[in-house]
């Protein structure tokens, strides 16, 4: 028997992500995603041994530790219920904590879920800390990340249009994903490039929306995988890495924690050439320029070269390394769920269940999330076949 139990993803469920789900409570929102994941796995609430839930700061809904109130809606009564919070990477971290329960053989079937109902509050001001915690005029995440994007452009010499190419691609990909929040049918590159400047160089169309949404997955051991009605995805590697927010020598453009996290995942999964061996990537790109930045950080391109992959169409749905075929965070951003959606979309690709945004023949896919001040990273690599042990 292998030291660790191989972990399979046998069910995925999402809500249709929108700006405001006024028709459901928070409980209704999470239950909708959980029910769809159970249906996908042909399981019911009683089949679940434990629930692991994640979301970003509680201030986003104004409910402290909402998992206590959600215990009933999640079918968790009488079961273990864990609540993870690791900033923007939380959706990924939550899935990894759930996977650990199966890998350690503590539980056999685990429901994991992440959500955000941003319409209950205002995330931008929830993220804007009062003095003395933060200097004024650093409104929201865009104000924090724009200087790092400018540093990347200066360092790499990337043409100023690369960001708009990413946004144009992701918004078009979203048209193929029925669950995506933004469906901009009339989108053109010119519209992206002429949209208002929010945080120079990030334009309105290059930034993520505020969404209400939830994403759920059912994880199982080998026995559970053999009973699943659809092909499972197998976890080949998963890791989290953290570093401090600010310190002398911090590289905001390509943080060491991101590099270390990817290296750990590739080592576990036996990946030596990620560009060639990985068929699809769902990475956390809340502002367009983060696609070329993460392509370098994750080892898909040499330093300063990531933008060339974007510019040459490699990351398009028909390219040889499709990035965010779902439309990504740029098209859908229920913050606490965004990381799990990346992980789940990677799963859908290797299960050949991504529908109109399926990458043909995808066998290995990477799910990536990050958070805080580019300091928390979580990633997993999933495959169509079980891991070699």
């Amino acid at each position, binding site marked *: 028997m292998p030291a*660790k139990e191989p972990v399979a993803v046998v069910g995925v469920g999402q809500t249709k992500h929108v700006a405001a789900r006024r028709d459901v*409570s*928070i409980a209704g929102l999470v239950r909708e995603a959980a029910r769809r994941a159970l249906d996908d796995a042909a399981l019911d609430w009683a089949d679940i041994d434990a629930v692991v839930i994640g979301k*970003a*700061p*509680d*201030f*986003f*809904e*104004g*409910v*402290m*530790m*909402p*998992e*206590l*109130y*959600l*215990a*009933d809606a999640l079918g*968790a*009564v*009488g*079961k*273990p*219920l*864990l*609540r*993870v*919070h*690791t*900033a923007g990477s939380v959706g990924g971290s939550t899935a*990894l*904590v759930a996977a*650990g*329960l199966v*890998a*350690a*053989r*503590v539980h056999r079937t685990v429901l994991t879920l992440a959500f955000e109902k941003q319409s209950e509050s205002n995330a931008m001001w*929830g*993220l804007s*800390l*009062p003095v003395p915690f933060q200097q004024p005029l650093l409104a929201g995440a865009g104000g924090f990340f724009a200087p790092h994007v400018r540093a990347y452009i200066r360092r790499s010499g990337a043409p100023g249009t690369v960001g708009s190419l990413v946004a144009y691609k992701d918004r078009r990909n979203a048209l193929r994903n029925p669950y995506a929040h933004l469906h901009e049918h009339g989108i053109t590159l010119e519209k992206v490039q002429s949209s208002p400047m929010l945080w120079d160089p990030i334009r309105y169309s290059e930034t993520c929306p505020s969404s209400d949404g939830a994403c759920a997955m059912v994880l199982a051991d080998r026995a559970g995988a053999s009973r699943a009605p659809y092909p499972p995805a197998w976890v080949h590697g998963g*890791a*989290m*890495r*953290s*570093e*401090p*927010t600010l*310190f002398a020598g911090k590289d905001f453009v390509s*943080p060491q*924690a991101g590099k*270390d*996290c990817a290296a*750990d995942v590739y080592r576990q999964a036996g990946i030596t050439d990620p560009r060639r061996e990985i068929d699809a990537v769902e990475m956390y790109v809340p502002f367009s320029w983060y696609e070329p930045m993460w392509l370098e950080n994750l080892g898909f391109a040499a330093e300063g070269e990531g933008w060339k992959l974007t510019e040459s169409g490699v990351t398009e749905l028909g390219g040889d390394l499709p990035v965010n075929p779902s439309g990504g965070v740029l098209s859908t951003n229920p913050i606490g769920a965004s990381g799990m959606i990346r992980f789940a979309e990677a799963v859908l690709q290797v299960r050949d269940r991504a529908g109109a945004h399926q990458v043909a023949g995808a066998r290995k896919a990477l799910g990536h999330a990050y958070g*805080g001040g580019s*300091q*928390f990273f979580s990633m997993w690599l999933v495959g169509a076949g079980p891991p070699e042990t």
Partner: protein
Amino acid sequence: MRDVAIVAFSQTDHVRSSEEVSEVEMLMPVLHDVLGRTGLRTGDIGFTCSGSCDYLAGRAFSFTMALDGVGAWPPIAESHVEMDGAWALYEAWVKLLTGEADTALVYAYGKSSPGSVRDVLTRQLDPYYLAPLWPDSIALAALQAQALIDSGETDEPALAAIAQRSRTAAEGNPHAQLRGPRPQGGYVVRPLRTGDCPPVGDGAAAVVLAAGDRARELCARPAWIRGMDHRVEPHALGVRDLTDSPSTRLAAERAGAFERPVDTAELHAPFTSQEVVLRKALRLGGSVTVNPSGGALAANPVMAAGLIRVGEAAAAVHRGTCDRALAHATSGPCLQQNLVAVLEGEPHAR
């Protein structure tokens, strides 16, 4: 299952107000102390996990500041739960069970002093039906206490005796906030008097976990985790029997607590009446030493108090004053969510 033990425990002196220090400044001495007890440095730790709450800190992502205190450079494998640190311990324990790490650092902290924690805790209730009424944590505990009295499970003198015993025990605990007995005082919310309620205060705690022989290297008498489990109950108080705690009983069963008697129990019972519920659920007889630290009635730094119960139980094993201990942590209104860990020392150590 892999053998995993708690090899070190440290905590602050818990105080009514720590306004002169930030959360990081409060936490750092504890981190240094707990690592110092094992000779480990941050870079030696395989996995780090913490528990804390943004609603106490009053800002989003408050745990990121604490990470600065850990010294996460080079980058570390790290996670955080928005729960009491006892659940961070659970996550770290599972991580060690997978074999992905051999050591773990777990910490938790909470400052209740900046606000009115009694009111802050109302924000964790059902946001549509309950939170708008602002039923505070003492009022909800009082409902539970009254239910116990009405069912003949306890009475006010019995509750007063629990308060007296806990704070007398705390005389031997240099970290406790209330050391020595206090008058029961008047009613806060009937039938609970001042003495039945926990002190409001600030504090932090940390433990180090290690697996197998690594634990034996780091600690003369490791506190082996024989089992750990946690369970949650429905949120709505109206659908629960407040005089019982089926989630605690189930967690204890799963943790193996009933396989052999324990000699010591550290129960996270912020209110005297909740000790009555927990003793029943855990079938603790008179021979078991309950809360030799004084428990949450002597110091209740929210988010750390549950981890402190596990740490106190482990420390008793480390000292050799306990061979088999039960540690309990709770979260949510009226004991909604409960965790039970069973710790043992090896019989012939030292």
